């Protein structure tokens, strides 16, 4: 890990080399877009006054960071409707006190315990780069290409095994890819359930978990529910 002194030196080198001024202001487009948004904000005063005080989204959506699958755009959601977590391949690791994975767990805990969302949806999508990398990973790690990406994506390793067992060996890669994305969504849903603060409201019927697959190649959006039910006890 870099010491502070090293970092300071490196930053000084960078400031000499980099010459930070950009020829074209990258924010120009965003500034214009925000001006449009501001006009909409002014128009919907009642809505935004309420949102300024607090948020009460009914949905938590977990989606991939992929630029093509923003869930608010794709599902036409208004601001205030969905609390949204995004990471590579929309992965949720299982509950574990020793885990270093706090970003997903903390977001879910906040959404369920504090915002009291009623639905969690995990959205996978076509042509997911993260899942492709997972499927191409060699067991012995001999084709490792990244510092962090493989460590993150291996959360979905069980889904890769299920997909490889389900899909015939001679099928086109696209079929295995699609299957693995859907199995990864199911795995993340089951991992969600491993958090007591998810399981308890689910069992009481206060929280529903949904899986989804957004196919932007063929223009489809499939959804399914994860059902969790404890039957009435019966005496033997």
């Amino acid at each position: 890990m870099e010491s502070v002194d090293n970092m300071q030196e490196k930053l000084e080198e960078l400031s000499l080399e980099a010459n930070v001024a950009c020829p074209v202001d990258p924010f120009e487009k965003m500034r214009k877009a925000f001006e449009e948004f501001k006009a909409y904000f002014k128009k919907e005063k009642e809505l935004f006054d309420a949102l300024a005080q607090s948020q009460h989204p009914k949905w938590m959506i977990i989606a991939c960071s992929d630029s093509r699958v923003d869930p608010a755009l794709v599902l036409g959601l208004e601001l205030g409707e969905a609390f949204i977590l995004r990471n590579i391949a929309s992965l949720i690791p299982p509950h574990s006190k020793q885990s270093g994975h706090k970003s997903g767990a903390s977001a879910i805990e906040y959404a369920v315990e504090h915002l009291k969302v009623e639905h969690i949806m995990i959205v996978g999508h076509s042509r997911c780069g993260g899942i492709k990398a997972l499927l191409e990973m060699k067991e012995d790690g001999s084709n490792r290409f990244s510092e962090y990406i493989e460590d993150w994506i291996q959360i979905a390793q069980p889904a890769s095994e299920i997909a490889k067992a389900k899909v015939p060996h001679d099928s086109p890669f696209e079929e295995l890819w699609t299957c693995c994305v859907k199995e990864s969504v199911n795995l993340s849903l089951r991992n969600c359930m491993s958090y007591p603060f998810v399981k308890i409201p689910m069992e009481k019927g206060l929280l529903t978990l949904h899986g989804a697959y957004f196919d932007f190649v063929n223009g489809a959006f499939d959804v399914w529910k994860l059902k969790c039910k404890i039957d009435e006890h019966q005496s033997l």
Partner: protein
Amino acid sequence: MHNAESRTPAASVSAVATEVQTSPLERLKTGYLKFKENYVKDQNLVSSLAEGQAPPYMIIACCDSRVDPCTVLNLPPGEAFVLRNIGNMVPAYSAQSACSSAASAIEYAVLHLKVKHLVVMGHSRCGAVKALMGIEDDGSNRFSEFIEDWVLILKNASKKVKSIHKVAPFAEQCTACEKEVVNASLWNCLSYPFVREKMASGDLTLHGGYYDFVSNAFESWTLDLSCLNDVDKVQ
């Protein structure tokens, strides 16, 4: 496309909210069909995105339902690779960062997608920052299993704000911390060697952003390595 003209007005939103109570999935279906109707009008975009993505931006934003960056900044599909967590926080580079959602996303965006701009976007009334600011030093008021552990990755931001704004009201301290968290996250982005390399070669610029939905304003600033205070307000 999802633009100002196609947004549902407030009256319809409250009608839609009622619909959610009876049929939550119907709400999503209506939204999706509208998106699809607009999306398929641009077949060139549809075909090119089916093949791959080349977003110029990576945006790190909060999960807060009020701050969807693509909505606020009108970014269509394909424009921004987006990481969202509570508090828009980026932990520092560390060999122990294995299995880090932020590290993997930044690595993928910078080295594989070759984004040109990395933006960390903070916002007003952030619950995660409020939680961070409210944590007692001795941890005696711990209220969660994971939330405190997550927000404490930027505990130095909260310490700095508390020492600079000692006598300010809590709400003002939180606002200062929301912006300090953006700068601290940018600083942590810089701690990744692959980020520094791309900045040195002029291929990547780091930016801070702050969306204030109380006063309806968006500030943005570019990370100038000699001076971190170059702020440009859009009023």
